[in-house]
């Protein structure tokens, strides 16, 4: 019956029996207790079949009790919160938990895809490289879709993740990974010394292996020692214990990545809280006390539900009071495995037999066996009879050749222990082999890191405490902390004797990587086919590439590989260990930066005023800029923009241009400095005047442009394009600090200090006279074209006024301190009312610049020279400047370069589009006659037709020529005329008037 917890032991465990939690697995209702994982609750309820394997869809149960689990993967939660591939062994139980098995159809019990097992003789490692090649087009149409559907594990939600994530920084002297005996001892030593300590534990309970094993430390039962130790640590002000937190990566400079599962133990995160938090922990030292992972032995049928790691079985029995089986057999090659027999007996479970692959068994265990009434069989498990209902019978090959059979409903396996060498190997250090424990231990650890306890190959409890305490003390000392560390916790060391056994030959599939269905014969096949490097083995068979990252399979795989190739295990070597230590949700890495918060947003000083007016905004880098200001009745953007342009050209308009980069260039050598960064001269510029400047990169290509004005002898005000503002500042600082440090010049960004507006149109002066103090002379004589100076406004506010024009009209730019920016926009509207003032956006700005033939972003594309832009004459020949020499290279001054030219369709009704290519008339388009392309287009209200600029081969020599605008992407092809790029007022009379 569902929910009866038939396999729950009547006493013991770290579960809260007073808090029952109901949950659903594959639609069936169950009960568990607070303190359970989904896996332990399933064990308690006698559920053995939990999943299907990747390739053969074989029935699988629960193998482990931790994050190394290859089999018990579920889809946790439902709807938008569905989490595929969640390990039941780490999912904390909560009220109402919903989980479903995956990679099966229609049900876990009856999975049609298990038909794949019939094809298993063909579906060997790498079979797909040898077939599915004919006919070629069948791959995308038939084979691949079928393979894709069959592959994969769980299903992602398919809709936007509704939860929030954030990220944070933490700083400490010592970060400790793991809260087992070594980790706690390390924290004690470091904490007592006065160090700032962070202890990360991936579990929701502290204690590590002590939770499953018990033991005695300092004369106390392990649980009491843990409680006492935690209390002491919590009382230290600079020790921070982080449970549900996995340290997943080790990065340069003592930076560690960790993931905190803040609210994964709840159905839904509480309001204002995140699901998970990504930590970047900056630590002077790191102690890895992450323990070791018990490894399986590969034998036929080792994937049968009910076959479980021996330590996991202890964990279920001792920590969760859940019996994975009633009659347990144990298969071990080491002393530690025997603990499971002891645990089973203590819990009142039956031990069917212990199969020990070693020649000798200790007298203590012999007497345990005789007291417990079970046989000790010397030999190996050669097959398991079971299937989806779980283990029934175990075949044993006895040493000497005889066979035996054991009836049991559970088989505990211990093949020894692998230290968790992931974190210690993320800087490409290769672990080294130790024969005495038949395992790899850390070597070449990252700077500042030390491993301690089982993670370092010290498996005895006493050794763990000792190594942990010493490592914690050393780490604190290295971080400069020297407080009294008190006495070291002590415990006895158990004996660890192991006779390596990796693979038991036998009939039937013996799995190395259970999740990826990689068998021992796949490893042999890879070897036979020449995939002899461990990396080739991994890639060819996919061994170790599943969601468990090979935690239980890698070492066995390479041991079998070594045996087949006749090399030793250390000669065979390991693959490279890579972060993250456990899979981490992509959402957690993104944190807050998603949706509208993906990147910051910059607002201009008049933003809220423009928004009130109903402006449409466009993203320009991080900026939101008013693109146009629609009015009631206007049918589309073009009508609005055309109105704005006409209003400027016939009256007056204004536009917020505060997004331009603005830099104060101060100092006695400011002019000399600008001479070196611009291609034209600035030291000769008179105070009170501005000049258009062009900057090159050192490779001679145009970098940026803008107007720079001289406000005082030793003060220039430089502007950059919106796009390059930050980069130009960086470049100028490089010039100042690195290239020309002898120049006395100071640079400050004042981009945010000034709200700047362009005011343009024949009535500009009329409007401005309403704004500025009547004493200011704005006449052509008093304020000539390219003049620049501070003025007083009505009401006394000071502003900077620049007579520059991007639109080609009589125009000024006016700057006021930014907090007055919104008032300036409002005042321009009030003062301009009699003149029909019209605010205009970036589209109208763009139209007018194209009409005037001014180059902008599409022409300054990082591949054009000053000559290409028609600005070659600006290059001074009297001074050195950045880019001067490289700009002279032959291909950059070749006569056939694509240069800026005006373009207009011969049919005035035709719309011109950017990105159309220019092909000579009468020729078939091809790479040999692709002569350029249209860079910028607009509908010109003045000319009443679409016009544009383009980069066209020898364009300036071909004015008047009719060519084709070829636009196959949009199925267009039409005649255009190459023309002067200045469409409007070519002699510039209007802007000077």
């Amino acid at each position: 019956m569902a929910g009866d917890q038939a396999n729950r032991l009547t006493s013991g465990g770290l579960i809260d029996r007073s808090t029952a939690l109901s949950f659903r697995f594959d639609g069936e209702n169950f009960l568990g207790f607070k303190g359970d994982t989904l896996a332990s609750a399933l064990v308690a309820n006698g559920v053995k079949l939990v999943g299907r394997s990747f390739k053969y869809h074989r029935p699988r149960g629960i193998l482990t009790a931790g994050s190394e689990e290859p089999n018990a993967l579920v889809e946790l939660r439902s709807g938008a919160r569905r989490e595929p591939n969640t390990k039941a062994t780490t999912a904390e139980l909560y009220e109402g938990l919903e989980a479903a098995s995956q990679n099966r159809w229609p049900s876990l019990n009856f999975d049609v895809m298990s038909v794949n097992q019939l094809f298993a003789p063909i579906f060997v490692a790498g079979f797909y490289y040898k077939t599915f090649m004919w006919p070629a087009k069948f791959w995308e149409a038939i084979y691949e879709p079928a393979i894709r559907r069959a592959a994969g594990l769980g299903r992602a939600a398919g809709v936007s993740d509704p939860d929030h994530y954030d990220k944070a920084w933490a700083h400490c002297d010592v970060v400790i990974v793991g809260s087992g005996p070594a980790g706690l001892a390390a924290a004690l030593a470091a904490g007592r010394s006065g160090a700032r300590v962070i202890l990360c534990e991936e579990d929701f309970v502290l204690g590590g292996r002590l939770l499953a094993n018990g033991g005695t430390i300092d004369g106390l039962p392990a649980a009491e020692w843990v409680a006492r130790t935690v209390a002491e640590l919590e009382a230290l002000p600079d020790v921070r214990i982080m449970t549900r937190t996995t340290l997943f990566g080790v990065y340069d400079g003592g930076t560690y990545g960790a993931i905190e599962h803040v609210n994964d133990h709840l159905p839904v995160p509480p309001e204002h809280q995140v699901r998970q938090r990504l930590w970047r922990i900056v630590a002077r030292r790191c102690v890895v006390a992450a323990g070791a992972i018990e490894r399986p032995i590969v034998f036929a049928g080792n994937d049968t539900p009910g076959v479980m790691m021996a330590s996991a079985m202890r964990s279920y029995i001792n920590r969760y009071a859940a019996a994975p089986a009633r009659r347990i057999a144990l298969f071990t090659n080491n002393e530690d495995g025997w603990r499971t027999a002891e645990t089973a007996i203590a819990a009142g479970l039956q031990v069917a037999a212990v199969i020990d692959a070693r020649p000798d068994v200790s007298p203590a265990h012999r007497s345990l066996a005789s007291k417990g009434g079970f046989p000790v069989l010397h030999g190996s498990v050669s097959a398991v009879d079971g299937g989806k209902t779980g283990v029934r019978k175990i075949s044993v090959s006895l040493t000497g050749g005889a066979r035996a059979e054991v009836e049991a409903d559970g088989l505990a396996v211990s093949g020894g222990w692998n230290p968790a060498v992931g974190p210690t190997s993320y800087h490409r250090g290769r672990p080294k082999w130790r024969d005495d424990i038949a395992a790899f231990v850390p070597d070449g650890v990252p700077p500042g890191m030390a491993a301690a306890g089982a993670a370092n190959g010290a498996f005895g409890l006493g050794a763990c405490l000792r190594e942990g305490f010493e490592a914690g003390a050393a780490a604190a000392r290295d971080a400069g902390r020297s407080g009294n560390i008190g006495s070291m916790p002590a415990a006895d060391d158990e004996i660890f004797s192991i006779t390596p056994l990796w693979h038991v030959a036998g009939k039937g599939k013996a799995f190395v990587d259970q999740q990826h269905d990689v068998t021992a014969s796949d490893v042999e096949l890879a070897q036979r086919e020449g995939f002899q490097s461990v990396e080739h083995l991994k890639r060819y068979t996919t061994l170790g590439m599943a969601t468990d990252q090979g935690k239980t399979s890698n070492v066995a795989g390479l041991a079998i590989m070594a045996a087949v190739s006749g090399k030793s295990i250390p000669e065979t070597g390991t693959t490279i260990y890579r972060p993250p230590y456990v899979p981490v949700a992509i959402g957690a890495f993104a944190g807050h930066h998603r949706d509208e918060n993906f990147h910051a947003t910059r607002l201009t000083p008049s933003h809220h005023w423009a928004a009130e007016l109903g402006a449409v905004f466009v993203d320009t880098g991080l900026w939101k800029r008013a693109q146009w200001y629609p009015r009631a009745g206007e049918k589309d953007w073009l009508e609005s923009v055309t109105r704005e342009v006409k209003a400027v050209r016939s009256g007056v308009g204004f536009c917020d241009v505060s997004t331009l980069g603005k830099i104060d260039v101060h100092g006695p050598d400011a002019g000399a400095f600008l001479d070196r960064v611009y291609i034209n001269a600035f030291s000769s510029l008179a105070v009170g005047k501005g000049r258009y400047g062009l900057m090159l990169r050192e490779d001679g290509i145009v970098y940026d442009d803008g107007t720079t004005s001289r406000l005082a002898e030793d003060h220039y005000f430089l502007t950059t394009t919106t796009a390059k503002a930050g980069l130009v500042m960086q470049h100028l600082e490089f010039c100042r600090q690195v290239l020309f440090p002898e120049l006395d010049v100071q640079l400050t960004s004042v981009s945010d200090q000034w709200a700047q507006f362009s005011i343009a149109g024949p009535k500009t002066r009329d409007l401005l006279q309403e704004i500025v103090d009547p004493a200011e002379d704005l006449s052509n004589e008093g304020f000539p074209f390219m003049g620049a100076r501070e003025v007083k406004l009505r009401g006394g506010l000071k502003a900077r006024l620049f007579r520059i024009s991007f639109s080609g009209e009589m125009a000024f730019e006016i700057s006021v301190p930014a907090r007055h920016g919104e008032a300036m926009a409002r005042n321009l509207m009030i003062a301009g009312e009699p003149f029909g003032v019209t605010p205009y956006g970036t589209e109208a700005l763009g139209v007018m610049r194209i009409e005037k033939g001014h180059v902008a972003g599409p022409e300054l594309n990082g591949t054009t020279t000053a000559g290409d832009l028609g600005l070659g004459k600006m290059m001074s020949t009297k001074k050195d400047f950045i880019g001067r020499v490289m700009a002279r290279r032959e291909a950059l001054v070749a006569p056939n370069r694509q240069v800026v030219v005006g373009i207009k369709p011969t049919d005035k009704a035709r719309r011109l589009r950017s990105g159309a290519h220019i092909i000579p008339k009468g020729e078939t388009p091809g790479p040999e006659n692709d002569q350029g392309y249209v860079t910028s287009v607009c509908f010109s209200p003045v000319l009443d037709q679409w016009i544009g600029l383009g980069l066209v081969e020898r364009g300036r020599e071909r004015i008047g020529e009719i060519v084709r605008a070829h636009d196959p992407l949009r199925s267009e092809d039409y005649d255009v005329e190459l023309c002067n790029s200045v469409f409007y007022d070519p002699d510039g009379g209007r802007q000077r008037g």
Partner: protein
Amino acid sequence: MKYSIFSLARAALSGHKNWQPTWRDAAPKDRYDVVIIGGGGHGLATAWFLASEFGIRNVAVLEKGWIGSGNAGRNTTIIRSNYGLPGNTGFYELSMKLWERMEQDLNYNAMVSQRGVLNLYHSDAQRDAFARRGNTMRINGIDAELLDQAALRKMLPFLNFENARFPIQGGLLQRRGGTARHDAVVWGYAHAASALGVDIIQNCEVTGFTRDANGRVAGVETSRGEIGAGKVGMAVAGSSSRVAAMAGLRLPIESHVLQAFVSEAIKPLLPNVMTFGAGHFYVSQSDKGGLVFGGDIDGYNSYAQRGNLPVVEDVCEGGMALIPMIGRVRLLRQWGGIMDMSMDGTPIIDKSPVDGLYINAGWCYGGFKATPGSGFVFAHLLARDQSHKEAALFRLDRFQRGAMIDEKGQGAQPNLH
């Protein structure tokens, strides 16, 4: 042994005991007509084309580790020919055409999957740049389509159209683009080249060049002894500067880390290859089910083959901004490869200033898609001493002449390409 479903079925009957090695693990001979340094995709493809197209079979490929251990085995497996500048456009299309027949050429299933490569745009300026590029492709006979937002909503409804910081406006789609199984490309070329007599020599590190009396390269010194060569070609992207330095050359190349990422395997979610236009993120889903994705390079010179955390965050931020349904999908592995970042973002395939030494380098992070094309034109250069016409602009002296091929317009700043 020819690979097919029939040979597989036959092998199954004998428990797969009779398969031969996919390629011969050769020991070095004293001399070869051509020695290729680098047993990655490019080196092996070069050897195969030398043997199959140009009739030069006395060829050795020297690999310091195991074949495919460099960038061939560490990339996001994307293939495409959607380039916009002369030099690149034709070359990558040549390569694409070779992808389209690779499996039949090699008798090896490299899982070339033409599922489409889509570059998203988020602004008018980006659309215009894509229009220019797409038209270049079309003029060169390459498929390209410019899609608007409505078309994308229909095709990929899960993209963030609703509350994006930089709304998606449309995309440039090359349907013939897609992915290929990177390791299988390496093994396929090794398999086919070996069958034609090419010696593939692993664990053989080149430590120097030998020269004849005229200064011409006469062979290489290796960890397995000296090997004579009529010509030596280097295809060691990531280590080009180090190998070239042995011949006394400095290159316009810097080595940088590029990270790539794979998620846990999930059921089919993403139909094609996508690149985010407002951040650093590109993604596809492998046949096994993992999301394979990447972003920008870490940004500084490095040979460490491992990445930093800020870039992982940056890439995942891009991923979440574009496809918010991947939030609960878990990142399974991150790794870092060494990129040969050239000074204009474009490769170099040319004779070197040292007689007898030929360079194939500077692939930035675009080397995988170039594998067959690179092999073909490099074999052409080695066999005929003349650039193939589709590689004629990949010259080493283009920087001296000012004839850069700079798709991104970033100039001589490798970490920006």
